[in-house]
């Protein structure tokens, strides 16, 4: 490429380091500035997005508190530590409407991530909202719109007598062959995506609900 008159001497290494260092510092400053300025807004957006999904799967709820569930019990999310995050939703009177948790399983194209609602009063899964999915538009994404699929919920998720697993594993069955309230009737033509929902729910509920149930009273009153 045709260039300007060449520099008379080779630029010294020191100069190169100076310039690179200076530009790196300028860049770092700009990035950190933007990060600090936008952080509160981004956090707000994230919380709003989660709340939208939580209130969608637990209708009637108005406020939400986050908790962590692990082998030792349930504690507020603010206290840190490990465990599965659950969102407890309360109605206007402060009564627990249910908890929401994330689940995911391999679908047709990639992983389908959902948020599902669980009502401890009926020990059933109230519904689900899709958090992330790359399923085929018009086919796999029918799981959010197909009336017959949505009629699968509330889904039975009772615990077995020993409290260590579900009484009946949640499973997706072929369209039209549903026999029990813990089964999900698949959408014909979108079996794999429907199965992903069933697998995700089962995987999550089998682990979460036995851990959650002994401590459910802790969540019953809005803290």
């Amino acid at each position: 490429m045709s260039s300007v008159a060449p520099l008379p001497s080779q630029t010294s290494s020191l100069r190169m380091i100076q310039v690179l260092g200076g530009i790196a510092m300028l860049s770092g400053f700009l990035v950190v500035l933007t990060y600090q300025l936008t952080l509160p807004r981004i956090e707000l957006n994230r919380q709003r997005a989660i709340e939208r999904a939580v209130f969608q799967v637990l209708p009637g709820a108005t406020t939400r508190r986050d908790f962590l569930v692990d082998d030792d019990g349930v504690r507020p999310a603010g206290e840190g530590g490990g465990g599965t995050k659950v969102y407890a939703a309360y109605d206007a009177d402060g009564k627990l409407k249910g908890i929401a948790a994330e689940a995911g399983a391999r679908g047709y194209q990639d992983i389908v991530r959902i948020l599902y609602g669980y009502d401890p009063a009926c020990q059933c899964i109230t519904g689900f909202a899709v958090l992330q999915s790359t399923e085929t538009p018009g086919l796999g994404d029918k799981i959010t719109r197909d009336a017959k699929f949505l009629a699968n919920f509330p889904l039975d998720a009772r615990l077995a007598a020993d409290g260590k697993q579900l009484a009946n594993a949640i499973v997706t069955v072929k369209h039209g062959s549903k026999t029990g309230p813990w089964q999900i009737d698949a959408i014909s033509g979108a079996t794999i995506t429907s199965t992903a929902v069933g697998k995700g729910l089962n995987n999550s509920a089998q682990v979460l609900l036995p851990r959650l149930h002994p401590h459910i009273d802790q969540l019953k009153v809005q803290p």
Partner: protein
Amino acid sequence: MAGRKRDDIITADTFLEGIWRENPVFVMLLGMCPVLAVTNSVMNAIAMGLATTFVLIGSSTLVSLLRNVIPKQVRIATYIVIIATFVTIVDYVIQAISLDLYNALGAFIQLIVVNCIILGRAEAYASKNRPLKAIVSGLGMGSGFTIALLCLGSVRELLGSGTLLGFSVFGAQFEPWVVMILPPGGFFVLGAWLLLFNWLRERKASPEMKEAVHAR
């Protein structure tokens, strides 16, 4: 670019060449990845176009301001650092504006950093011209890019979902041509636009040349 001296006059051409004669997508065939990936709806196309234009203008300005300071040996590395800075800024700004839009655009916001248009412009233009000229040219290139994105986005959204900017155009009976919003659709629509462009360019060619082409 033959015959263009390094003059400092900003003409209308400085802006317009990025839109038609040197359109980054249809003529120079650069930056194809986002053009195919985020054009399944008009909203995404506009957002991507604006984000890329912002990065283009910002990085061109900074490169142009520092053009006499950056040593030749490390210029590519410096350009990349500058571009990455602006992309990170636009990444956080979009997250702050709308999380839904951010999720729709996905990784392609961060992939603006490897968009050949921006690095190419910094190397070939911004490092050789004064800031104001670089800004105007960046604006032109960015507009050209956005126009290309819109061309694809509108066709794909119209045929693939029956909507434009979310508003239903054909009514509820319309059976959407779903492949248009899937990957193959992107390839087909871009190929079709290029076909149209080439045809228009050939028509503009002189009649003698057209004779020669047909005689082949």
